[in-house]
């Protein structure tokens, strides 16, 4: 299946877009998605291991299924405040 992943901050700047479309198996997990995202560029290979995936605006564990997700977002290390 094809999946749009929302991108933010340094990840968005590296990819050059607010989102990226990736292909994953129907039974893919959050961990599978992160692996796929880390293959997009040398920069992403460095950044993604420190990122979390958010499914429908909630942080997801690596084993979480992405089936039925309305929104998937890559959340780099945060720096608000």
């Amino acid at each position, binding site marked *: 299946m094809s999946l749009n992943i929302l991108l933010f901050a*340094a990840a968005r700047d590296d990819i050059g877009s607010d989102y990226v479309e990736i292909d994953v198996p129907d039974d893919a997990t959050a961990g599978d998605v992160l692996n796929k995202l880390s293959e997009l560029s040398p920069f992403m290979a460095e950044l993604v291991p420190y990122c979390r995936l958010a499914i429908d*605006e909630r942080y997801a564990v690596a084993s979480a299924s992405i089936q039925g997700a309305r929104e998937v977002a890559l959340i780099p*290390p945060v720096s608000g405040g």
Partner: protein
Amino acid sequence: MTHRVHVELVDNPIVVPSLIDDANDPDVGAIAWFFGVTRRNTGDRVTDTLFYEAHRPMAKGSLEDLADLAREKFDLRYIVIIHRLGEVPVGQASVLVGCSSPHRRDSFDALAWIMDELKRVVPIWKRECYADGTTEWVHPVES
């Protein structure tokens, strides 16, 4: 006994909610406020301005969750969390957190806890714009 929560993401300078009146409650003995302000110097680097970006709906929900958790952990009556997004020049506030409580210790502890958690979990990012013209996203990595 009133429990009020005010959580907001704003794109302009933070307007401080009226300090006494909004938190007014005859069971309140303590009100504490924290302003996080853009600092010029970090180590030997000089900041001109900060730029904040967020996953807005998730950040709003995450701040609301924090306020609810804070009310479970501490005896609070009123919580305000306002985070500014976009450009925040040196000397201006990027974040405001306010609490009121019957006793001061709850407000002090809640302020510190909310700020620690906000910096740990809320999907907001800052980009440093240094005086030398370079910019850099801040993605702190736990060591």
